[in-house]
């Protein structure tokens, strides 16, 4: 995946995350991690997981939930699971 494709994916994940945890888009930076914003707490995190499953059609198991704790990690997971633009 090229740098620009990665960037597009990151933007899409940022946008999904902002909606899931109900914060303005500009608060979600490309390197944001779980806990950096009070809204990205346990409930917020699970909302993000549910939306990732819905929007990207991926299955997220309990092991993965604990790994997807930053936007770069989420992007890497989606790329590894065959996400294509």
């Amino acid at each position: 995946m090229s740098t620009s494709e990665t960037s597009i994916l990151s933007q899409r994940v940022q946008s999904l995350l902002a909606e899931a945890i109900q914060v303005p888009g500009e608060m979600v930076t490309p390197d944001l991690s779980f806990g950096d914003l009070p809204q990205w707490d346990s409930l917020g995190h699970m909302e993000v997981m549910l939306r990732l499953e819905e929007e990207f059609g991926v299955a997220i198991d309990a092991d993965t939930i604990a790994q997807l704790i930053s936007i770069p990690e989420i992007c890497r997971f989606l790329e590894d699971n065959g996400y294509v633009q």
Partner: protein
Amino acid sequence: MCSDITGKPVPGAAPGSSELNFAPAVPIPDFLTGEIQSKLAYVDEHILAARVKEDQIILKIASAASLTPERQAELIEKVQRVVLSMAKGAFKPKVQVLEDHLDRRVPFRFDPMPELLASSQISQEANGLFVLGPLLTRLIAYFESQFIALADSFQAVPYRFPTLIPARYLERVNYFRAFPHSLTFATHLREDLQVIDEFAQHAACEHSELQTPPNSFAPIQALLSPAVCYHLYFALADQPLPRGQVVATAVGNCFRYEAINLTSLERLWNFTMREVIFVGAKEFVLENREIARQRMSQVFERIGLAYRVESANDPFFIGEFRKQAAFQSAFQLKFEIRARLPFKESTLAVGSYNYHQDFFGRSLNITLPDGSPAHTGCVAFGLERIAFAFVAQYGLDPANWPAEVREMGA
């Protein structure tokens, strides 16, 4: 949506009850049948019992509910709301077993409740409320000595907390949303001479319910505390953590209303919990939680308890269950000590090793020296439950107990 519905009195049902039998709106995975079954206790006051399987739900309904077709439809709709909320799109929990000593040989196989009642070693005051006699009281004192020794091994500082907890405290840690079903409220008469006089003249119990004149009670400011450690977190709130870390211990009465799930000493409305509580940096809390588990493993080996330590989740209410339970499981935040109950080939949670991440640190503004929120964790033991599990494994005759327990005066 539903098939195989029956709403008539059935031969197997208790006198004065009917059975309602229908399919869940979505299949219920194995790992959720127990959780959903326990939540059905809160769906309707007329549900006497509930049984949940993957493809079938059976409710026992009090005859007073007069099971008309409309009433059936209403009950089923409420149950399906629970099923959909908890089972649809549920994340399968990751079960991690840290210790497994369930096959430890124990000499007793019978339900100790009948003998405890018959010998007046316990007596029941009401649903979920039991008086414990000398046998279990001494046994609990023995277990307490072991838990206090654990606390001492960490140089835990002792605390005494009130039985009541302010409502605003529980609100601040989201308790009302997470566990509304198990709350127990405390109130008092309004400070009004007429109200107090009328109450004194007319208050009377009808069956087990207190009948009072309307508008007797003041608004609720406090509840009966559902846990011990919350009090410590509030005592530390809105300030930097002294010396960057705290280890404390306390024992206290706890209250969790569990409706029809309140059975025997396994599930009490009013129970006692001993906790060892860690507050500090993440590594400090996690390391100490693990050290506590290892130390207790040696204690349980000496006692000869048959048990397992496995990952678990708290009994969140329906709205938050799916997400919170999955989160706890994914991050391995809670491990329960599940003692074997040989008489029913089942296990009972008698304690837990918990890590809350920085939830309380953030919610209550407890800060580390670097300004970041403190992490918290606790090790908690249910005193009545561990005593019950012990007599379920070793019986009521101290002659059959392990020497360690017998010789310590229990």
